[in-house]
């Protein structure tokens, strides 16, 4: 499986990238880490006339602390984010999810922005972005806009990025001392893509009760989805085993998965309930426990 021919350009500044994007219309693809794009090129699923390699734009890879947010430049390698003390401290949900992104060889080269812009419905970071209400900073020639995660992911492999636009950076809210988070996914094999995954971000109050719950699930829709029904139950405050169980069941009822060769609708619902319980328990007590 060899790619179709393309023109290749590797600009060294973001300005140049945006200029090229503006000029080449829709027959262009940005090459970030390539771990998602190149398989598609090799299979000839996509055949852009022009590939713009972001690998020479050093200014696109950064991790900055800005006003209570962690801003991650699009070309930050996943392994860099995974190992960053700032990420571990300031955005524990992101740190928890990153080890699930493929294997080490993928994370060495794959980028935080690349996987978000690619928006595979089974990718982990879109669910993390949704759970954290992250903001995606989008740039085009001469313009910048900020898109809330909930508005960014439109469908499988489809985002609200328009022609001429690129994802510049992602702003993740920093977790305070009251934040509790966990990430879990289960697939048909221990290593590999998930059938269902959940990113859970909770806020507790001074009594240890749940003040806020954000749960985003991947694998139950064409985009990651917030599990509002579960969140409502959890935000009633109690995190007893019964309450968490009820939250899981509510989530399972509310989601609308499809079946495929890997898993049935019933299984996806069941897994949703199970992973709600697992992530909430792990977020609260830091350990993985068997679900009830």
């Amino acid at each position: 499986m060899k790619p179709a021919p393309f023109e290749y350009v590797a600009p060294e500044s973001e300005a140049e990238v945006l200029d090229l994007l503006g000029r080449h219309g829709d027959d262009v693809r940005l090459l970030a880490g390539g771990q998602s794009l190149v398989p598609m090129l090799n299979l000839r699923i996509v055949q852009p006339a022009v590939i713009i390699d972001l690998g020479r734009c050093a200014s696109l890879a950064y991790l900055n602390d800005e006003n209570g947010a962690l801003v991650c430049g699009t070309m930050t390698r996943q392994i860099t984010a995974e190992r960053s003390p700032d990420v571990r401290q300031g955005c524990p949900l992101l740190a928890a999810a990153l080890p699930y992104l493929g294997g080490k060889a993928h994370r060495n080269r794959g980028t935080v922005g690349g996987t978000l812009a690619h928006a595979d419905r089974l990718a982990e970071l879109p669910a993390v972005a949704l759970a954290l209400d992250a903001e995606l900073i989008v740039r085009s020639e001469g313009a910048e806009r900020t898109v809330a995660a909930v508005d960014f992911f439109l469908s499988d492999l489809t985002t609200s990025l328009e022609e001429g636009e690129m994802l510049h950076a992602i702003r993740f809210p920093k977790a305070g001392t009251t934040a509790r988070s966990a990430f879990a996914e289960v697939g048909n094999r221990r290593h590999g893509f998930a059938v269902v995954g959940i990113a859970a971000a909770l806020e507790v109050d001074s009594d240890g009760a749940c003040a806020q719950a954000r749960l985003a699930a991947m694998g139950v829709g064409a985009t990651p989805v917030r599990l509002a029904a579960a969140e409502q139950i959890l935000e009633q405050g109690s995190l007893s085993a019964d309450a968490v169980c009820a939250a899981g069941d509510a989530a399972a009822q509310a989601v609308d998965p499809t079946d495929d060769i890997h898993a049935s609708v019933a299984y996806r619902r069941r897994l949703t309930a199970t992973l709600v319980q697992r992530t909430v328990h792990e977020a609260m007590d830091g350990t993985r426990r068997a679900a009830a």
Partner: protein
Amino acid sequence: MAVPDRPAADSWKIVGQSVPRREDAWLLTGKGCYVDDVPEPPNTLHLGFVLSPEAHARIVSIDADAARALPGVLDVLTGDDLAALAQPIRTGFLLEGHRDTSRDVIAREKVRFVGEAVAVVVAENPYVAEDGVERVFVTYDPLPAAVGLEAAARDDAPVVHEELGTNILLESTFTTEGLDEAFAGATHVIKETFRTGRIAGVPMEPRGCLATTGRAGEELTLWTSTQIPNIVKTALAKLLDYPESGIRVITPDVGGGFGTKAHFYPEEVVCSALALKYGRPVKWIQDRREELLTNIHAREHIYAIEAGIDTDGVIVAMRCDMMANAGAYSSYPFGATLEPVGGVRFVLGPYHICNYGYLTRAVASHTCPAGAYRGTAQPTAMLAIEGMMDRIARKIGIDPAEARRRNLIQPEQLPYTTVVGMVYDTGSYTEALAKALEMIGYEDYRANQPADRLIDGKYRGIGICCYTENSGMGVAAVRARGWSTLPGFDGALVRVASDGKVKAFISHAASGQGHYTSFAQIVADQVGVPFADVSIVVGDTGQTPAGTNTFASRGTVTGGGAAIRACLVVADKMKRIAAQVLEVSADDIVLENGLTMVQGVPDMSLTVREIAEVAYSMTSHALPEGEDYGLEATDHYDAGMPTIANAVHVAAVAVDAADGTVEVERYAVVHDCGRIINPMIVDGQIHGGAVQALGEVLMEELVYDEAGQLQNATLLEYLLPTALDIPMIEIAHIESVTDENPGGFKGLGEGGVIGGVPALTNAIADALAGIGANVNSNPLKPSRITELIDGALGKT
């Protein structure tokens, strides 16, 4: 003094040792040479195949103008063009009840499965070849497709081969006399239907070939990633109408075979035919998508079993109704008969079953052809009989191990002839079971197992597989199967060079199983030279004698047998020469560690080199009167009917009650393959097979939709086990040596998967037995397992 036909009992010294492998020297350091590594002559042409996107359709038109116009594309050829160069592939079987199929090397008029080639692009390099493939526009007139096994077997199913008028490519029945009466006399009759999903071998190296010609087309050399170079050679000669002696088939290093590469494929014909046509080397390397779409599939089986038992759980009568999905063509050389005939005959396992009948069918469908994949019906057959053993146990309330003990063939019954005529020569069925149960701590496990099997949120169970394995088939065995294109024998040429080093040329082909080491161990012992002084050549029809090559766990038996016999002839000549030089009787000479010497008198010795120099007339000492020059022998060995290996696998699993994932917590094997050449290599074969079984049971399945589209032709979606999925496998050995072949060897390549599939399935079944779930199919993905759990708990 006649040449002995058996090795001396005390001659096995290096055989039996875990000698580290010779081939690691090149494979570990990046110096392996697989078919895509073979140096390409500068004017090599590269092929790209245009594959049908339709499962069943008439080919209406092929427009290749745009492809031909592409710089770097030499030509595009269709099925009609290739038909002028090569005949279609037919198995030519001589087997009653088999309906043969004809497969054009590139489809003409009709396509019969998604992935069947309809045109070939000839280009300057592989990238341009793919560009060309994209520019060939084919119009099809789609026809209804028969895809699933049961659907394709129906009378009203779309017919794959019109001229046959049916999709039943084989129908065969058998019964012992008085079977109905035997059933009538049973206390209970237990019925179950076992269904297994389609899978494939998926070697890490896809296939490929490089065809070159020499001497103005009088020589054709085909490098191909195959397990069967001699079979490929004779097939090519026939289909190309080309002198067989002008063809040389070479296997370079092969990145895994597993039976997938023990088939003859159309691309091998196309590469060869086009090399002859253009007078230039022609190369083709398969990609992973093509590998999954078009390489032999296997194991889409249904077994409907009825077992009549007495009050003790002993089987007094059994029936087996089996179907196998054969795909679109009867594959070459084993055909559509391979799985269905094997399944109903092997299902008897190591059990004493006297009253038996079967009906078996091979069903054609608009899917990739099926054939041999490691184990070849034995894994599913043992799944069926071992599943019945557990059901017998549950029915009469005894332990599953006890149900087996009551049915196993006892040691004193060996040699044992089954009712279908298979002879079990030697074996250790009861001993292996006892030992395996002890290894895994079976009694304690059962004693501590709660009725509902649930511990810490996981259902835990233990599963057993006792199996017999068909190995080492020779001429009689292949004739009995009707395989007219398989000779059945193998050959070895053992040559001592004038420097005293030994080279053995054996008609097998290596694909990772350690031929360069284990065959060298045999030769070193039988010629009496150090291991380091022996080298092995396999996989080259230009160098080795004729033979049947490597599949069905026959390499050790047939290659080892031929090598031993040739070695014995050479050794005998060495003794005669030594005797003459040393002026003693040949009866007093022994070969040991590079010396030919008078037994017990090391001072009276000659080195192998000194003997060889006499044989090659390079010394003043004359060759003894009546001897011929040179120091070599060729033997063609016929192993006859198979020798039967056996083993017991026991697996302990934990099934997560919430998410249905399975962890294999313990895995023990007691394995008997007769005399072991290299224990380390045997263990490696068992590990590999058992993990393939784990894949087969837990995660592998090739899924076609109703239109015949393969849904998961990538490794992202066809899941293979990784290092996180496996148990550390514990192995013990028994050696029930057989007299059936000179080495006393039995085959072993397939045992890991044969034992693993039933053991793992039964373990999961046992784990869920406490809640009353019935487990009778593979694969058992988490989704299926939770469905079984919910169904049993009344939650659906």
